[in-house]
């Protein structure tokens, strides 16, 4: 059940990070989302054996993390979530792709090893890119951006409210679990036969809460739609940033910098 406590802290941590005041934080959330998406798409567009082409892409997360003062620790915890399945998929390559691609010194490097490391690197790069987005953009701004993208107000409201109530739900779960543990000291988790009542009770508490939330919303003039959040446009200077960044990513995508540097040296 450590996961529950960890999740509440993780949430809180990202939220306080997002309230920072660096150049990246000040950037329009739309700029950040567009660049993050472009970056992720270009990174995953690399072929499975193109490890060397991928390596220069490390520059984006490293520079951004330093500028935005995003610490390394939340990144590592997130990596622990994303990596296992990727390692699983990558490990298969180690097993099935044993043919030697080339030698570094006298060690043979197989195609499987290359594609294994390229999956791992892709995971690290994409997870970091999304982390930087989340750690530099407060939630309220993310929802504003959805409004700009013409996402229906129902979904924006739903997204914001779920985000808002996750902590409350986690806290309720933790206190119920503590009460459960006190009466079932030998158990390392909830017994399966108790899950119906445990989870069901949690849901009923949520349902009761939703009645009160609804009353509070009604009292403040809620009428089913909430399309009143407004937001400005992406500043002109930031379009330039998007353009330059995209251009350099595209250059790196089609010009293999690693091979070039490796070639110059050898």
């Amino acid at each position, binding site marked *: 059940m450590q996961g529950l406590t960890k999740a509440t802290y993780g949430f809180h941590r990202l939220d306080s990070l997002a309230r920072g005041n660096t150049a990246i934080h000040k950037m329009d959330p739309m700029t950040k989302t567009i660049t993050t998406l472009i970056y992720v798409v270009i990174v995953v567009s690399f072929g499975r054996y193109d490890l060397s082409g991928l390596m220069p892409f490390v520059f984006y997360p490293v520079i951004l993390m330093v500028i935005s003062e995003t610490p390394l620790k939340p990144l590592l915890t997130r990596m622990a979530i994303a990596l296992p399945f990727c390692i699983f998929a990558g490990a298969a390559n180690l097993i099935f792709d044993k043919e030697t691609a080339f030698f570094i010194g006298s060690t043979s490097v197989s195609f499987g090893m290359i594609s294994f490391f390229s999956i791992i690197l892709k995971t690290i790069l994409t997870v970091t890119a999304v982390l930087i987005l989340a750690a530099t953009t407060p*939630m309220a701004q993310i929802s504003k951006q959805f409004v700009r993208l013409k996402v229906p107000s129902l979904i924006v409201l739903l997204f914001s409210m779920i985000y808002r109530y996750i902590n*409350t739900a986690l806290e309720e779960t933790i206190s119920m679990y503590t009460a459960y543990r006190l009466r079932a000291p030998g158990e390392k988790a909830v017994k399966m036969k108790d899950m119906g009542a445990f989870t069901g009770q949690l849901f009923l508490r949520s349902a009761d*809460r939703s009645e009160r939330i609804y*009353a509070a919303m*009604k*009292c403040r003039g809620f009428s089913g739609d909430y399309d009143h959040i407004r937001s400005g446009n992406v500043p002109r200077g930031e379009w330039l940033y998007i353009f330059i960044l995209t251009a350099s990513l595209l250059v790196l995508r089609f010009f293999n910098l690693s091979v070039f540097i490796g070639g110059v040296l050898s």
Partner: protein
Amino acid sequence: MIKIKNLTVKYPDGTEALRSLDINVNEGESIALMGANGAGKSSLLLAITGIAPYTEGEIYVDDILLSKKTVADVRQRVGIIFQDPDDQLFMPSVFDDVAFGPRNKGLNEKETVRVAESALEELKISHLSSRVPGKLSGGEKKLAALAGVLAMDPSNLLFDEPAAFLDPRAKRRLVSLVRNLGHTKIIATHDSDIARQLCSRVIILKKGSLSYDGTPDILDDLSALEKHGL
């Protein structure tokens, strides 16, 4: 100003939460609504906002009779502050939460910002504006919830157990801030300190009916309180 005439609230299963209740709350008056658990305090508060479906009687808010037609108007005039502020801080930041009401009213963004900021300023919590409601302290949550209600600019305020879960310091702060609000107030509470400090008049409900309506002096008379079910 709130006038309640012969109000009976019945729940779908037939139990009567309130029985032929008559209460007048004058403009600017602050009354403490007391009574044992289940006496009908919450039902009364919800009935005034048109949320509990009441079956008989009349409720007037600022001389407007509460009905299906007027319910939206009435809700703009009545602000309710729930016992658990988590139930009414439903937006991802304090500012957005306070701005929820004004935005629903159709104010433009500039007006919304002005109204929300002045509500936060009034309660001296402007510094919480960009915070996530879930992570505030109990006292801060309470004030943020109150700011959201004040931003609607209601003339009447209903509090359900305002000091619940607050530490002594947060409670003192809340009391001094609430005392300075000029609204008509109904404060449902079990806390006789709160009743004494904020209210000039005490109403006690017993099993859904009016049992006492008078000065707060009764709070010192334990045998009288006992008689009213407290």
